[in-house]
């Protein structure tokens, strides 16, 4: 899987309460959730995000609640990939389970700025900053997880009988 997009960058410990505040958790409608994505951290996010954009952040991205509404809101807002130094563990598995692409790569995070254009190759763990010409390598997912992503998420894997 390959992605190319404009970068929207945030800092450390971006929590699920700012990704999608609980006051909007009385719905599970993807579009409605997307319309409030990042609202308490960045009021302009929904205005500036374009389909295919790449979100970049620091440590512990997605910490806090287990709400799957958080990766759903990010994905439904058009973000194709999130690159961070580290992800909080529930956000990490939720992203895989719903098919939101994510990558951990501190070196890339340190060398990518808001607004840069970035290309990422998920299968080989390669991130290329088209704006600066710098390339970064990271660990691709273990095979087990790649399979879930290739299948289109955990539900599809179960349907194929791969988790029994």
């Amino acid at each position, binding site marked *: 899987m390959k992605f190319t997009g404009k970068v929207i960058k945030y800092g450390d*410990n971006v*929590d699920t*309460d*700012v990704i999608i*505040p*609980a*006051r909007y*958790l*009385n*719905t*599970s409608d993807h579009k409605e959730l997307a319309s409030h994505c990042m609202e*308490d*951290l960045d009021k302009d996010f929904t205005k500036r995000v374009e389909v295919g954009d790449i979100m970049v952040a620091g*440590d*512990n991205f997605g*910490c*806090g*609640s*287990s*709400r*799957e*509404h958080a*990766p*759903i809101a990010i994905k439904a807002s058009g973000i194709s990939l999130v690159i961070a130094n*580290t992800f*909080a*563990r*529930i956000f990490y*598995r*939720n992203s895989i*389970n*719903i098919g939101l692409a994510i990558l951990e790569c501190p070196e890339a995070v340190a060398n990518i700025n808001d607004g840069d254009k970035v290309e990422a190759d998920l299968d080989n763990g390669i991130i290329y900053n088209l704006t600066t010409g710098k390339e970064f390598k990271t660990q691709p997912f*273990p095979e*087990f*997880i790649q399979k879930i992503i290739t299948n289109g*998420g*955990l*539900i599809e894997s*179960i*349907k194929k009988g791969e*988790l*029994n």
Partner: protein
Amino acid sequence: MSMTMTQKILASHAGLDKVEAGQLILVNLDRVLGNDITSPVAIKEFNKIGVDKVYDKEKVTMVMDHFAPNKDIKAAEQCKMCREFCNDKEVTHFYDVGRMGIEHALLPEKGLIVSGDVVIGADSHTCTYGALGAFSTGVGSTDMACGMATGKAWFKVPSAIKFVLKGKLNKYVSGKDVILHIIGKIGVDGALYKSMEFVGEGVSSLTIYDRLTICNMAIEAGAKNGIFEVDEETIAYIKERSDREIVSYKADEDAVYDEVYEIDLSAIKSTVAFPHLPENTKTFDEIGDIKIDQVVIGSCTNGQYKDIEEAAMILKDRKIAKNVRAIIIPATQDIYLKAIENGLVKIFIDAGCVVSTPTCGPCLGGYMGILAAGERAVATTNRNFVGRMGHVTSEVYLASPAVAAASAIAGKIADPAKI
């Protein structure tokens, strides 16, 4: 290779003799939990799988606690969807208004968790049950859906940090202060992807309720789970509530830990986490005059009878400050009833507090105590993120029930030892 407590439980549920950190395994689940926020998403996903039954009617559990009693029409629709699903699938443990409580207080109370269990819950504070020697962890709705359908979940076997507890807590200091102290020390990602294992002679001096509070906030250090070694107190608590076999695991003597911390319980002071992260902890020698508008005592972290009683003992024959609203939320119906029978509710009302039916409401800024712009709350809850309890400029200070009660009286963040 030797194993930690967590690794032993996971190995036993994966049908393996041994597991090691980093290994991906598929485990059998003893319980799959969801609430009124996360279950609707899970039900939609479950329906895509194409099975018509849940894997075990006794093991799937749903609790209507977050926005229930329904806060608005959308919340009502979400509860209705859960209710209909549980009726249709004949789910035994569906807890609706009148029988429900805050999920992580309710499940242990109802005897639904036994040491040695593997539990997943579509709620991040599912890690609470480690207090009873179970492996329990928060997951998302899709994991919950697959768990309901197959009774299985995939896990990466975690490495662990060991906390060796010694000594005894001082008066007015409780499990909340212990976990805030630890998070202040290791940070909100200090245990990322790892287990936090609590052992040592100090364990037996902590009540089950202190241990529940400590494990509840393991997620606030990024941990996959928190777990206590089983002792006589654990066994007594479980036996009173369940007939199931108690399986207790101890880590191997030579088990490998990423880090080991020695925690002297007698040295821990009342601790408050300042906005906007649970790691921003301070003790009273560093806390100045911080005026507050609201106090919340309750939640899955501190809504047990012991917590409510501790607050009542401080509020007895006193009045809360004029400009403070204090909201007391016993976590379950049984706790609520006991608080009425023992006169605690009268103490609260006489002091000027309100006492609510069980709900998660204010903790996550849902309802029942939303903060206006610039307002400050002292809460016995678990998160103080930006906008967590209301307006984006409001502030939440996390503290123990004793500190919260003392603060309600003083109208500012206050040390219970000095009230």
